């Protein structure tokens, strides 16, 4: 009897000891702008991840997945690297994710090989990032990916002589090269190429220059922010819209949270992008409902939410494939070629570039039920990262 009781006790103790080994916690470090001028994008990172966890649960094969956030307000590669190291060494994260700006993503990519830490880029849009390490994948888009369709859209809209106006920094130069190459290959002429100072908000002289070249359309890329609004206003107020000149942009100029500020003036702008909140699919409806539940109303939703949502899916798949063990090769193999239905449409991870292939949509700014939206009018299906195909 006594022996039996002892055996039962021993069994219970063994169970207690064994239990934590099964229910372990896999940590994922997320680095992004949670506060500051770009805070809305970090907020979208977090909401996208929270929404995915709300849908898929917080455990994979019995492993609890915990996301650990670090704030990186502005472009700061040195701090990005330090945060990544801290997450790997101190927090013992198995995966890294996030990165809003290219320089930060490049800095993080330099430390992940030592830590054998797969890294899912959730925004930074320069093509070369995924070439820095075999452990980097990307769930957002690249400038080439969204700009090549913009040049095709320009041809479809009847543009023949165009001015290219881009912000003078990395992604702007990518957009310029991608647009020029595609537009000229399709038979168009680029009459002038203007690199605009990044911080400027006075575009009067730029508009005058556009008029002087007698172009029939303008392609523009500027990162979202105060200059975007000022650019579109200058385009209209300097009489370019009235003169019949068309404006074709990437979706950065017509992000949904900025559209109310553009108001009527923004109507009719053509843009190309991977995601519009008005995208008509059951997946997107469910996605927006989940985001609202975790505290992100539809009017604040931007691309980074869907990139983070899909990024979280990639992380879950890697954790599932490796059963929670640190095995970067197996983890990366699990996502190569993986295809699924995202809120933005059908997507897949290109096995060669580890970058996401997706539909890019031609959209037009319209007013529907009192709200301004980007209505998708055409899809360019299964677009790769053209930047790495040069």
């Amino acid at each position: 009897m006594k022996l039996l009781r002892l055996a039962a006790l021993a069994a219970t103790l063994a169970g207690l000891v064994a239990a934590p080994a099964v229910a372990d916690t896999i940590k994922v470090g997320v680095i992004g702008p949670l506060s500051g001028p770009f805070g809305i994008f970090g907020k979208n990172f977090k909401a996208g991840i929270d929404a995915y966890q709300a849908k898929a649960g917080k455990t994979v094969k019995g492993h609890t997945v915990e996301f650990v956030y670090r704030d990186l307000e502005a472009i700061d590669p040195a701090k990005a690297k330090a945060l990544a190291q801290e997450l790997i060494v101190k927090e013992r994260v198995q995966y890294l994710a996030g990165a809003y700006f290219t320089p930060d993503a490049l800095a993080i990519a330099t430390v992940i090989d030592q830590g054998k830490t797969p890294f899912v880029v959730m925004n930074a849009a320069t093509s070369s990032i995924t070439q820095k390490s075999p452990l980097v994948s990307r769930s957002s888009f690249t400038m080439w990916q969204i700009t090549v369709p913009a040049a095709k859209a320009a041809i479809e809209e009847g543009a023949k002589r165009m001015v290219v106006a881009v912000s003078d920094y990395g992604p702007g130069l990518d957009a310029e090269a991608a647009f020029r190459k595609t537009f000229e290959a399709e038979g168009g002429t680029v009459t002038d190429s203007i690199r605009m100072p990044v911080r400027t908000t006075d575009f009067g002289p730029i508009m005058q220059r556009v008029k002087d070249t007698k172009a029939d359309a303008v392609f523009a890329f500027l990162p979202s922010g105060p200059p975007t609004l000022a650019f579109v206003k200058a385009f209209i107020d300097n009489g370019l819209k009235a003169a019949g000149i068309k404006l074709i942009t990437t979706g950065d100029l017509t992000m949904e949270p900025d559209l109310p500020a553009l108001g009527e003036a923004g109507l009719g702008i053509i843009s190309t992008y991977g995601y519009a909140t008005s995208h008509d699919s059951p997946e997107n409806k469910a996605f927006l409902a989940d985001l609202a539940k975790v505290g992100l109303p539809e009017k604040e939703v931007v691309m980074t939410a869907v990139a983070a949502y899909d990024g979280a899916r990639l992380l879950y798949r890697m954790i599932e494939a490796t059963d929670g063990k640190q095995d970067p090769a197996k983890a990366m193999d699990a996502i190569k070629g993986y295809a699924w239905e995202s809120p933005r449409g059908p997507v897949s991870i290109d096995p060669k570039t580890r970058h996401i292939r997706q539909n890019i949509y031609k959209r037009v700014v319209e007013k529907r039920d009192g709200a301004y939206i980007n209505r998708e009018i055409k899809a360019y299906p299964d677009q790769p990262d053209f930047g790495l195909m040069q």
Partner: protein
Amino acid sequence: MQAAVSILFDALAYGMVLFVISIGLSVTMGLMRVVNLAHGAFAMVGGYLASWATLSLGLPYGVAILIAVAGTVMLAVPLEMGLYRRIYGASELTQVLMTIGITFAVIGAANWAFGPGLKTIALPPLFSGPVDLGFRTLPAHRLVVIATGAAVALALWVVLERTDFGIRLRAAVDNPGMAAALGIRTPAIYATAFALSVALGALGGVIGAEILPVEPYYGLRYMVTFLVVVSVGGAGSIGGALLAALLLGFVDTVSKYLVPEYGEFFFYAAVIAVVWAFPRGLLGRPH
């Protein structure tokens, strides 16, 4: 020729925006000797109030300007009595630390109250859209800005140089002890001058919102530009601020038209050249 005239017009319009926003800062820095880094934050508060008045309350533009200016002054006067009064005559470092702190507090409050997005101010149809001047099309709003800038310059000159208040203010700044001994109530004069500079900032924030859009980081984003205009013009000089704003507006506009890939190179090259030749600014008075 036509291009040249058209660039000159753009330069004039941009210069006037710089002038309208910076002149209030020139008053605090030159006449009151306070390095007020919160000036941009006050301009932003004005912009937010006008945006709220036109979009949420549906009030006309003119009324919105009045609400913005009055509201910002009402917010700033208690700050003057509670905080700024302690730093008159203090070292620049103390002034900078306190006013940058106010700026951060205003940024946080604006972010919390209005969200991180851009806010616009609804313009009446008369002031919005393009206007055909014959030789070129210009935003109607720019003409409003040019007119406002000219009116502000004239009115300020009259107030500071030709009225009793202006004489008392200049006396209170140059020799506070003697001014007080002669019966000038210096605290009241300072409070009025501070309110005036805040009112000018708020007016600039509203009028300039088409070119410098209102968002929470407005107060930091454009503060360097405002400080540059004041230091190039000479703190406290109306003519200097006007001259500096027009000169810098001209350099920036021409370089943006001809060689936009040089970014702000020529703007800052001009700043360095002026400050090298005139360390106190174009029309700055020695103190």
